[in-house]
């Protein structure tokens, strides 16, 4: 039994996680003699996680060999240059978290150290003046950086906003063309080996049975296999990230879509706005200990750009992760593996991380304790790194206008985060840990944007004379402003390269 080779993978659940997994496994393992089967039921609605992504998604698509513009057209996608955060540090304040870096290093000293020094000399220019992503985003500009674009536009980082259900459909087509098999059916029970507890088959309605060697749980928050069958408990981080509910609704788009996500802090949580080509996605993430669902929905509907085109969809979630992401012969990917609120658009990224680690550690035998332990360690690290960055958004606030903000402002935080904040705040020091997703640009954007930015600077930044420093920084600002001005508008770029066909919103969302 334990030496049995893994020849068949069964994925339970479609949706974004299921079809991303099926597409990647069919592409990479199809030639290695591993069959991929996905079981899903049209009777079960998918959560449609994501819609907003981070730049790593471009690598996932590239590895699958997906043409970016085909993908954009198929998923009604727009480009994303970063996230605007409004009312997070304090009411009335806003800042931008860009995907591209800030400035250029000077004299082998990081850019932000020079910026902090310039500020100490009385200069009022903010970090955003040295970010092409920020300038372009607020001017509604976009161009895809190409190798011959030079070093300024080469700094532009981007991701996408897309319709997650269309992305799943796009990947379904991709996976099925590469040999993945889809079975329509409701999973009624999970069959397990009486001795080892490993999963042997999924039992479907109509007395059908789908056997496999390795099972991927993509059944969403339910965790039908990882929780129900394998009993992997949930590690709860609700005390650090207390939001536990969301209400989502799509609305008609107003004007041209902007190339960024907006996150607006509310009384007991925050609201997202994600512009797509055909509509705008919206949602309100909140903590039900401080706000009722009715009130949250009322706040959401009162703050839409256009008329709603769907009924509000209420979701409950727990923040945290499974103690074991991979248990026995079952690997949880997507919402079944854990959940971190979509404040930094990391949900699809965590799916991607689960898939890439599974491919790296793909077991030859059903029983693979070492591979499993390594997978669990790596995924736990990913979750913890992202958790710290999300908690920073709540901790670094001066808001005192509601009990929710009082709680998060005063709460204890993980030691790893406290150490990072202390280093960043004193003299802008930042050390990225090995597998950490967010780099100094991200940490600096949020910390500075919410009032916890560097108070000093590295004395090494004093190598330039005051005059040289002022001139160099002015030159940089000029280069960014000029590059942003020369870029086409986001809408013009979409029109030219990846315009999606019109969709009947009411028919689709009905």
């Amino acid at each position, binding site marked *: 039994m334990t030496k049995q080779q893994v020849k068949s993978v069964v994925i339970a659940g479609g949706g974004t996680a299921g079809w991303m997994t099926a597409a990647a496994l069919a592409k990479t393992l199809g030639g290695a003699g591993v069959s991929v089967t996905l079981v899903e039921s049209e009777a079960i609605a998918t959560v449609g996680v994501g819609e907003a992504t981070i730049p790593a998604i471009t690598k996932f698509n590239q590895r699958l060999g997906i043409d970016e513009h085909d993908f954009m057209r198929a998923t009604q996608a727009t480009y994303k240059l970063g996230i605007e955060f409004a009312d997070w540090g304090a009411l009335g304040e806003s800042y931008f978290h860009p995907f591209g870096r800030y400035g250029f290093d000077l004299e082998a000293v990081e850019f932000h150290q020079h910026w902090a020094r310039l500020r100490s000399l009385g200069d009022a220019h903010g970090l955003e003046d040295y970010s092409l992503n920020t300038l372009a985003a607020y001017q509604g500009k976009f161009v895809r950086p190409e190798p011959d674009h030079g070093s300024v536009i080469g700094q532009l980082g981007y991701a996408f906003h897309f319709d997650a259900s269309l992305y799943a459909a796009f990947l379904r087509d991709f996976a099925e063309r590469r040999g993945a098999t889809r079975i329509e059916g409701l999973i009624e029970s999970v069959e397990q080996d009486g001795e080892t507890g490993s999963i042997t088959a999924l039992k479907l309605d109509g007395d059908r049975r789908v056997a496999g060697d390795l099972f991927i749980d993509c059944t969403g928050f339910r965790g039908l296999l990882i929780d129900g069958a394998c009993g992997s408990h949930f590690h709860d981080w609700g005390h650090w990230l207390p939001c536990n509910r969301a209400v989502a609704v799509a609305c008609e788009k107003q004007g041209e879509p902007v190339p960024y996500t907006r996150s607006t802090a509310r009384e007991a949580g925050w609201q997202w706005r994600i512009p797509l080509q055909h509509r705008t996605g919206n949602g309100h993430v909140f903590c039900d200990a401080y706000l009722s669902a009715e009130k949250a929905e009322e706040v959401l509907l009162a703050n839409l750009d256009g008329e709603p085109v769907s009924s509000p969809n209420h979701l409950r979630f727990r923040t945290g992760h499974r103690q074991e992401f991979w248990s026995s012969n079952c690997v949880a990917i997507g919402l079944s593996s854990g959940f971190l609120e979509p404040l930094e658009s990391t949900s699809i990224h965590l799916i991607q991380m689960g898939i890439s680690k599974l491919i790296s550690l793909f077991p030859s035998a059903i029983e693979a304790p070492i591979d499993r332990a390594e997978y669990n360690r790596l995924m736990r690290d990913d979750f913890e790194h992202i958790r710290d960055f999300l908690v920073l958004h709540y901790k670094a606030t001066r808001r005192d206008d509601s009990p929710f903000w009082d709680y998060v402002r005063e709460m204890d935080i993980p030691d790893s985060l406290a*150490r990072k904040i202390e280093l960043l705040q004193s003299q802008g020091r930042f050390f990225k840990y090995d597998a950490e997703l967010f780099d100094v640009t991200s940490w600096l954007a949020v910390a500075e944007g919410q009032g916890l930015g560097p108070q000093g600077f590295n004395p090494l930044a004093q190598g330039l004379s005051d005059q040289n420093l002022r001139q160099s920084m002015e030159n940089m600002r000029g280069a960014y402003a000029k590059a942003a001005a020369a870029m086409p508008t986001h809408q013009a770029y979409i029109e030219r390269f990846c315009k999606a066909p019109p969709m009947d919103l009411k028919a689709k969302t009905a």
Partner: protein
Amino acid sequence: MKAKRLSVIGAPLGVSIVGAWLSARWLGPGRELTMAVSGAAQTSSELLLRPSMLSFHGELEISPDTLIQAASAEPVFSWTAQTPTGAISIPFSPYGVSRSGVEFHHYWQRAGELEDVSDISDFSLPLALENAGRPFNLKEMGQLPVQFGLRLDQARYADIMLQFAKQAGAKITDDTNQETEADFVIECVVDVESAAWRGSRIGLSAPDDLSGAESQVFANAARRACALIGDLSDQPAERAEFNRLSENEADRIADMRTLLVAEDLQHSASPELLRKIDVFRACGRIPTEDFEVFLSPEWLAALRARGVQPRRYDRMADRLPEAELLSWLTQLRRQIEQITSAGNPS
């Protein structure tokens, strides 16, 4: 305003590497750097600089050519380590070449299950170059798809770095009581303990039992100190970060030492090293820690030398048809032979 005074004292190798970096990166208006060497460098001793030291020198604008001419440096492609069963060569670059994101050793292992194939070291260009028995000039090196380090005279190298620091404005002295005058002291020794920053003093130490590690550790420490000591005032957060990184580095070096020399690996290895062994044995993958000194091909060579073999290869290696796999391996060996024997790499 009184100038901030930093002293770097101790063994010649450490003082010269750390001092050279600080003279280029830290020294500036209102700052003084004094370097005091205690004892002479080992004049007859050879020093190995690992490949990453080339970028360290590059940032100081010291070219490999300078080191070749002034310190009789020669390119090296691997280092030698002692194990309980004898000496082994550890290459700086991977065996074979990876393909479609799958490392070569997985393909090699699969081929070995299909038919007899020669040892994986026969597919190592760096090892073949090391054994080629002829010198390689820098122009050739630039065309070869391998990383290389330099082997050179330690005393002359230390002298080059000291002169560099002097030209950059550092004061060189043989007065080892400099520390009494300084606001902050960095003391460099060579042994096997880890570095630590306490109060206004950093004790840097580097191991002398793993070839190439001592210069690398001093260079890493120089970068780290430079990034964190700032204006030499006491900074608890920076100090803690320096010590954390230094401990991680020392732990990884200790892991390599254990892997190479321990008689009983299973009972001597740290949890991190055990994980490397277990995961490699399970699936041929080498997990990395938050901070690594040695490259993946080095761990691979050391693991194999100690008899740790993967039970299976990456399934993605199966995507290559058998005939194509075997012919590819034959071509690889032929190319390696051509490169090393022709003296004119293609």
